[in-house]
């Protein structure tokens, strides 16, 4: 520790530049992770808010809620208590004085568990009539207010905003909750169509809905359009950055060690055990990584505060902590390259 700290204090520029490099790499990693989580949330926040465990869709829906239409005869004769019918349709929302917004209309039965228990009303009240809607809070920023009369698609009917709800996002669009009859109206289907999907906060057996396709919540979310591709892209980017950070720290420490070979040789000649020098190098790598990672976290945090809310970034502290530990561990692995060199130093070089 003594050697590591003294050297870093004396060679501020060298170590400052390496730390800056790690700050930038970790900043990019944390920011990308934040965006990945933010976009995930934009895709599945509503589904997670409903505590969904099981999703049932029409067998010909190609795993897509928007393309699923469940008819009355596909449901079992006896209704399951822990289920809710969900009618979904992508629509365009318009109101006087507000911008046009592409949103997801979700029709619910007010007596079923999602409407009854899961919606977090931030202001106003739940849907009570078929011409009422409750909309995602983010629409406030687009000029929508409580009591506004809005139109959906090209329909003549007006709907009244009676409440704002938290965390209502589906497929990267705000959700507007309405009645199932309103959903039928929007989709232009008759009473035989009961919903787009059946959602449950329990694990349902396949036998309970034999005429429908059965999905666990994880399967359902992964099949949301673009969701897996987007996550894989981010995961690869973050993975590559991790590898790059490993290479950067290894190369920098290797170069620094090469420059210090004669010093190490002198110390080895004086009988200073190699383990002291190895420990000093590993300590330096840990200090560099910890400082770099903390700098990266700070920059990500500041960025999150200043960027527009339209850029979805979520700072998930347990994941950040895990990534930080991973980065420090990678730094330690990176330091093994120069460590190998130190162990093999020939102290005779000190005399040449």
């Amino acid at each position, binding site marked *: 520790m*003594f050697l590591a700290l*003294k050297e870093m204090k*004396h060679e501020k520029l060298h170590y400052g530049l390496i730390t800056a490099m790690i700050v930038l790499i970790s900043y990019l990693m944390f920011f990308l992770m934040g965006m990945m989580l933010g976009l995930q949330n934009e895709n599945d926040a509503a589904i997670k808010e409903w505590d969904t465990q099981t999703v049932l869709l029409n067998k010909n829906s190609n795993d897509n809620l928007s393309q699923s239409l469940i008819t009355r005869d596909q449901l079992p004769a006896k209704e399951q208590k822990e289920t809710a019918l969900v009618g979904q349709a992508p629509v365009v929302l318009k109101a006087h004085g507000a911008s046009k917004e592409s949103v997801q209309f979700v029709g619910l039965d007010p007596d079923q568990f999602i409407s009854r228990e899961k919606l977090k009303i931030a202001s106003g009240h739940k849907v009570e009539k078929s011409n009422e809607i409750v909309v995602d809070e983010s629409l406030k920023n687009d000029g929508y207010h409580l009591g506004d009369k809005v139109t959906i698609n090209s329909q003549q009917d007006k709907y009244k905003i009676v409440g704002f709800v938290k965390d209502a996002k589906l497929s990267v669009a705000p959700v507007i909750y309405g009645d199932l009859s309103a959903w039928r109206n929007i989709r232009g289907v008759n009473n035989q169509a009961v919903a787009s999907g059946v959602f449950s906060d329990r694990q349902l057996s396949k036998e309970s809905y034999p005429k429908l396709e059965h999905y666990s919540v994880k399967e359902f979310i992964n099949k949301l359009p673009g969701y897996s591709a987007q996550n894989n892209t981010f995961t690869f980017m973050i993975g590559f950055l991790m590898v790059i950070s490993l290479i950067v720290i290894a190369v920098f420490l290797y170069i620094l060690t090469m420059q210090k070979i004669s*010093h190490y040789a002198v110390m*080895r*000649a004086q*009988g200073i055990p190699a383990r*002291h020098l190895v420990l000093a190098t590993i300590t330096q790598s840990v200090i560099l990584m910890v400082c770099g990672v903390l700098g990266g976290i700070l920059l990500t945090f500041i960025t999150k505060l200043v960027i527009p809310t339209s850029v979805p970034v979520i700072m998930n502290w347990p994941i950040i902590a895990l990534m930080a530990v991973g980065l420090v561990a990678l730094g330690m692995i990176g330091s093994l390259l120069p460590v190998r060199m130190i162990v093999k130093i020939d102290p005779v070089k*000190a*005399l040449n």
Partner: protein
Amino acid sequence: MPTMEIRNVNKYYGQGISRVHVLKDVNFVANAGEMNLILGPSGSGKSTFLTIAGGLQTPTSGEVLIDGINLQKLSPKKRDELRLKKIGFILQSYNLLPYLDVADQFKLVDKIKKSGNVSREAFEELLQKLAIKNLLKQYPSELSGGQNQRVAIARALYTDPQIILADEPTAALDSNLVKTVGQLFQNMAKEKGKAVIAVTHDLRLQKYADHIYELADGRLTEKTDIPQEII
């Protein structure tokens, strides 16, 4: 028992036609309380002799004993330990770390060798004798060659070693400081019972030595008079 004994040491470098016989049947004894000077021109094998004597490299044949312990029979770790405890190296390259100030050069020794270093009083006396007491907060890059040399000598003596191995210890010093270093080595030998071995070109040190050797073409011979051509 001699503090250091070198028996029939041979050292070869390279292989085949490029094989060079650097040390030839070298025998040498250094006793506690004596200062030994090894003189020789460049390329005579002085540095090889010093590195073998200090256990930094092994001879091709022969053996090196320190306090009766055969260095070749020790593991590298044990050899490091022995070097740290018993040998003080004074190297031509001053053996100072550029990122430690003078005070920290000694602190580093304390961190690694926690006991057996010189007492506070002896340390103060060493700093005083070598006139480096006012340099404690300076970095090696801020010191002259002579100052670096003196700090390096103090650093080597700080561990209170039994054997002092010095490679051109007075190369960067003026006559006054040569006298100081010569007397210091002599005191270390006579008063503290150290075995001092210095390899050098500097004949100004000869008057402080108990034994003077010549190393030429890999052969070590003890001299009573110093040939002029070595100067």
